[in-house]
């Protein structure tokens, strides 16, 4: 995750992922407001359809990437002592990894 994801590449990926996240979130919120799934079966039918499933899996990857670059920037700006930085960055990575694995487990069960 960390490798090469710095400088211009990180800056560019932050924007690419931002556009994807914005489109996905706009679609999901619009759909939830306009025609919310009324029960469990309707929710599974919507989220489990292949296009939506793939879009959600891509959303998960983009979200973790976006969150990592963003939170790393914040940590590097405000935490100066090297050991503290390392500790917090490792905690952020562990947090994101755990979130990613959990979300993946939820998504896999939908298939």
């Amino acid at each position: 995750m960390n490798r090469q994801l710095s400088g211009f590449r990180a800056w560019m990926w932050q924007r690419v992922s931002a556009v994807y996240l914005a489109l996905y979130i706009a679609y999901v919120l619009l759909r939830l407001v306009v025609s919310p799934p009324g029960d469990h079966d309707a929710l599974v039918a919507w989220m489990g359809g292949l296009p939506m499933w793939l879009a959600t899996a891509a959303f998960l990857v983009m979200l973790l990437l976006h969150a990592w670059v963003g939170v790393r920037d914040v940590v590097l700006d405000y935490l100066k002592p090297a050991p503290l930085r390392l500790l917090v960055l490792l905690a952020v990575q562990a947090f994101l990894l755990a979130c990613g694995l959990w979300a993946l487990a939820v998504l896999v069960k939908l298939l």
Partner: protein
Amino acid sequence: MQTSPRPVFLNLLQIRLPVAAVMSIAHRGAGVLLFLAIPLLIGLLSLALSGDAGFVRAALVVQQPLGKVVLFLLLWALAHHFLAGIRYLLLDAHLGVRAPYFRHSAWAVLGAAPVLALMLLWGLA
């Protein structure tokens, strides 16, 4: 760092930040809040997908008063981060960089975010 005799004034309570700076700090704060909320959303989705009973419980979670307050705060953070992000993308494309627009768009983001959040809350829960 070199020590210099220049006076340093860093009283955060007295410095008057430009509106774009307030919006920018809120963009960061909202981002960190949304980052911390990721497990909440995965948990809610997991619950809603777990079965009929889970779906009903997930719907109840966002309809009870505390759930609504948390949902509103997260929607506000999301709306702010979303709108401020669009503003940054436009700035990257050199749109709205000049004097009045730069400030006006920052005010617009700060004002529109809670309104958008309220509309979404009303539509969702």
